[in-house]
């Protein structure tokens, strides 16, 4: 039975989240470009008074791209992929339709308040978990709704065996739920003391303990938001777009369970040479090395799926985006483990090499994969061909240039900075004042910002292409089985 004959998939929620992903992508990356330029040209801090300083904007950038752009992308693909690999339409269950819509609207409300809060400086300072307790509660509600959607759809599925992507979506759901809850254990102070701001809270954990919980969370937020759901995407969209069967079930299986098992142990690599016990640091370091393999397993599986398909890689920009994404996934999952080696971390920690690593992963892997997924979905959701292949090709090269500029400048900046902090003069005294180590980096900061700007321009091209696809492109009669139709 071909799904497309039997079923009318309902993409209304997927469409909503697609719009949200584009919106937050623009906002989050625009702010990214602004803060990147602020580091090169500090005068840019004063464009919006108190609300425009680097330090107010930085959490907005991270939250904007992670919880705005990325989560929306994940939800959009879930509401698309879920139905298809489970062979069941959301339209078959009014309940699931309501859950989906509620999920979307509550999420939008949450994100709007979150943006306002962060502009105002309301937050708890924990990286990637800045929100105060009232919003934490809303996060939980949104997450539970997503859970209903996943397990509801699974409950009424026709396809008995869960496809690989489903494994990863389920893991995302469970992982984030567990991590978020424990890292956000807070006591609202108003309810104990009866005064002060009602939304203020204080962490349940203190000092080194708090750091352990935070980086158990922080590292695995990377795992379960930047990695696991993106793998869910690539396992569906690459084979689907290319028409190639997945290279190896066994490799999928071992990579999945390996990743699940190993990832959680590696958080200690954020705390190397800190005051947490040495064995925790060492364990983080060791497991990070082991982690290369399950990470590379998925990437290799995808690259091998494309065996013999050089023609597609050349012809189809979507395949190009995805193959490139998995190579960048390999790069960043080798880079991370190497930065986890104690002696390397001694230099790399606290430097710009870390944001360099971050954006290898986020721009190359996460960004490319998410955009490719949304591109693939568009012709099927809007029943029109993709508006322009040429635009897509230029976007690819502009963004690739941007990524290369970003990471090469940050590698050089980070390593320079690390070496200068350590450097001594002929007497063995510190050779550089701190400000010396800042001013040398300005050219690299400018280069990075410009790389980021190129990436943002590419994202605008993506937005335009999607918009035209939705509104003005040629209609298609039947859904394409594989390669997405696109006008030259």
């Amino acid at each position, binding site marked *: 039975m071909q799904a497309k004959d039997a079923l009318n998939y309902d993409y209304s929620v997927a469409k909503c989240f697609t719009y949200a992903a584009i919106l937050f992508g623009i906002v989050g990356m625009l702010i990214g470009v602004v803060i990147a330029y602020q580091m*090169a040209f*500090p005068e840019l801090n004063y464009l919006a008074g*108190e609300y425009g*300083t*680097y*330090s107010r904007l*930085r*959490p907005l950038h991270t939250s904007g791209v992670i919880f705005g752009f990325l989560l929306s992308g994940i939800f959009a693909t879930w509401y698309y992929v879920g139905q298809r690999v489970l062979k069941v339409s959301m339209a078959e269950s009014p309940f699931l339709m309501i859950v989906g819509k509620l999920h979307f609207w509550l999420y939008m409300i949450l994100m709007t308040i979150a943006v306002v809060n962060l502009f105002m*400086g*309301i*937050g*708890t*300072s*924990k*990286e990637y978990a800045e929100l105060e307790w009232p919003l934490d509660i809303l996060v939980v509600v949104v997450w539970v709704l997503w859970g209903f959607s996943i397990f509801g759809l*699974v409950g009424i599925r026709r396809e008995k*065996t*869960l496809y690989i992507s*489903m*494994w990863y979506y*389920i*893991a995302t759901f*469970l992982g984030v739920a*567990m991590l978020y809850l424990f890292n956000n254990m807070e006591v609202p*102070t*108003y309810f*104990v*003391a*009866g*005064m*002060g*701001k009602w939304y*203020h809270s*204080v962490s349940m*954990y*203190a*000092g*080194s*303990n*708090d*750091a*352990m*919980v935070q980086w*158990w969370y922080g590292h695995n937020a990377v795992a379960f938001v930047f990695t696991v759901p993106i793998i869910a995407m690539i396992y569906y969209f690459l084979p689907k777009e290319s028409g190639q069967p997945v290279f190896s079930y066994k490799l999928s299986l071992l990579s999945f*369970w390996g990743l*699940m*098992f190993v990832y*959680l*142990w590696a958080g200690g690599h954020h705390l190397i*040479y800190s*005051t*947490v016990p040495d064995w925790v640091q060492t364990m983080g370091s060791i497991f990070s090395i082991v982690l290369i393999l399950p990470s590379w397993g998925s990437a290799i599986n995808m690259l091998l799926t494309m065996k013999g398909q050089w023609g597609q890689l050349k012809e189809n920009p979507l395949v190009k985006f995805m193959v490139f994404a998995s190579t960048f996934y390999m790069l960043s999952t080798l880079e991370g483990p190497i930065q986890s080696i104690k002696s390397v971390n001694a230099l790399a920690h*606290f430097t710009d090499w870390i944001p360099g690593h971050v954006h290898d992963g986020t721009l190359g892997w996460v960004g490319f994969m998410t955009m490719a997924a949304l591109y693939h979905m568009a012709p099927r959701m809007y029943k029109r061909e993709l508006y322009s292949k040429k635009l897509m090709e230029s976007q690819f090269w502009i963004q690739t240039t941007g990524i290369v500029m970003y990471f090469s400048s940050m590698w050089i900046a980070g390593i320079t900075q690390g070496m200068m902090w350590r*450097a001594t003069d002929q007497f063995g*005294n*510190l050779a550089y004042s*701190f*400000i010396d180590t*800042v*001013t040398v980096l300005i050219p690299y900061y400018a280069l990075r910002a410009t790389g980021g700007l190129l990436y943002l321009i590419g994202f605008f091209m993506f937005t335009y292409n999607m918009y035209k696809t939705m509104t003005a492109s040629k209609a298609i009669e039947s859904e394409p089985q594989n390669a997405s139709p696109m006008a030259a």
Partner: protein
Amino acid sequence: MFHWLEKNPFFFAVGVFLVIAYAGIVTILPDFMESARPVTGTKPYTVLELAGRHVYIKDSCNACHSQLIRPFKSETDRYGMYSLSGEYAYDRPFLWGSKRTGPDLMRVGNYRTTDWHEYHMLDPISVVPGSIMPAYKHMFKNNADIETAYAEALTVKKVFNVPYDQADMPQLGTYDESKKAVMEQAAAIVADMKSTEVKEAFKRGEIKEIVALIAYLNSLK
């Protein structure tokens, strides 16, 4: 076995959960730990310092500044003695940061002073030419939130037994008593400052954010 799990989503989910959950238990629980207890001499923050800490968090200074001195000679030469776990015993949340766009501040109270912070926060390049740190002029306008700081101090005292109101420890007392201590600590800082705006406001009984922030920075030793 695995194929069976893939057909039984409930058990699949349970399996995934077990695999990811127990790593957490093993890595986290043992460390609710001895070494995180306060070392002698570590005291909880006064209410004014806590208010300053809230300013630090509100403006995300931790986006650029760490508070963790690693045991390397290059760091102890620059910032002073390496950090000890127990020194953070009253830090909720911890503010180690993960990026040093600016220098570490763990012990900045040892080598910077009120008047210097005032120049620096108002206009960093006036003291450090080439600095890329933003100026924080709004801290000279906004009032510090003493009530919330007091609420937090009282909360941690009640809920986590943080030793306020004990011998040789900061005294909380009632809010009014606390407010008096806050004004006293603030007065010493305001006296060392130059800004007439801040001084005038203090005479009216207002404590600007900058005053609280400097109290906090000076307490970092």
